[in-house]
């Protein structure tokens, strides 16, 4: 007794599951490229290097939050000694005012949900 039918069916299901990203991509038709971010500011510098910001912005924001809320420490010395206010709404959002086209694009792409907006008011979009 071989049960060939059952084994092949099981194997096909397994292979389809393992290779499902391919089928999903074909079905949705998306290329899945990294999102284009829209910069609405003229400024060329951020509070830190882009590389650092890409990977560690969440740590920075967390630090800022704790400094401000728990230690009343509102000054941040950024690149080239420039001083910023530790504020999501007033510092970050002043350049990146377009949450939809800046924050959300990457977060959605990487499947990361953030809880910034549990407390902060979502900004009205600047067109």
């Amino acid at each position, binding site marked *: 007794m071989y049960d060939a039918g059952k084994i092949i069916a099981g194997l096909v299901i397994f292979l389809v599951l393992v290779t499902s990203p391919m089928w999903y*991509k074909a079905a949705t038709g998306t290329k899945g490229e*990294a999102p284009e971010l829209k910069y609405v500011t003229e400024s060329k510098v951020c509070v830190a290097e882009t590389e650092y910001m*890409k990977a560690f912005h969440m740590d920075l924001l967390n630090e800022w939050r704790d400094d401000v809320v728990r230690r009343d420490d509102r000054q941040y010395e950024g690149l080239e000694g420039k001083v910023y206010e530790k504020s999501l709404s007033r510092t970050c959002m002043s350049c990146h005012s377009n949450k939809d086209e800046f924050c959300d694009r990457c977060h959605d792409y*990487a499947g990361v*949900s953030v809880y910034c907006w549990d407390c902060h008011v979502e900004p009205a979009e600047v067109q």
Partner: protein
Amino acid sequence: MNALLALFGVAILFVIAYLGVDVLGLHSLFGIVLPYAAIFLFLIGFVVRIFQWAKSPVPFRITTTSGQQKSLNFIKSNNLESPHNTTGVIGRMALEILFFRSLFRNTKAEVKENERIVYGPDKWLWAAALAFHWSFLIVFLRHYRFFAEPVPEFILKMQAVDGLFQVGTPIVFLTGLILLASVTFLFLRRVVLPQVRYISLLADYFALFVIMAIAISGLLMRHFYKVDIVGVKELAMTLVGFKPVVPEGIGFIFYVHLFFVCVLFAYFPFSKLMHLGGVFLSPTRNLANTNRIKRHINPWNYEVKTHTYEEYEDEFRDVMREAGLPLEKES
């Protein structure tokens, strides 16, 4: 000794990744070639192994019954432990595969003074194995977010539950910690329990260390040496689309993580890890106890030399006649 050798092997793998990526800068090799090679080996190896198994028939119905058979109406049968139909088999297999039914039975025997043996329940192996496999599965599925755009809703829901406590930035996923803890436990019991240490082969430690390395590099990457996650997904998506491009600037730790995953995939079909497929095919579990209800066919059943009644009577005719036993032939 086996454990040290395996650890040494995994350390060498780490050095290879370090030299390849950090020193020689072979990003395409580690980001593209090896992942393709690994998944190729995995798929082909897996299919070949299953075919090897499938080619051998199951000549006899050798169910291990762990409960009451279905016989008389007034005796309650146990369809999950001694299945008498397909539903029962599916139930039994589901319990086995999803909840490790047989391991749950585990006991520990001890020989005491005064010629006494005692059996205590021993659920540690079951609990650790269950935690390990389930958390690994969820961790594996969570990675789907790098391979699908848009990210499917159920993956997001799963992440939300997994990160329920909202500790850390980014949020710590419980399954990541459980995976590392359980794989560590499984390693420790291998070295601490004398019986298990005695039977452990190098391959047993190697698999554990590779998985441990994957878990550790993953956790480090998520929480300490963070990398450009968008770049990671970009790479993954181009791999899926067969137009691979390695984005600039993904951190080294990512390549370490990926390399160990590749090792695991490539190693999988050639190792005991194939129990993933084997558990479905184990004849003592996946056959119903319907031996006397339905004839099981053995494809290689062949004629054998028997001692027929005629031969028997020919040899013993005289004594049979004397004993008054009926005969087929009088002489």
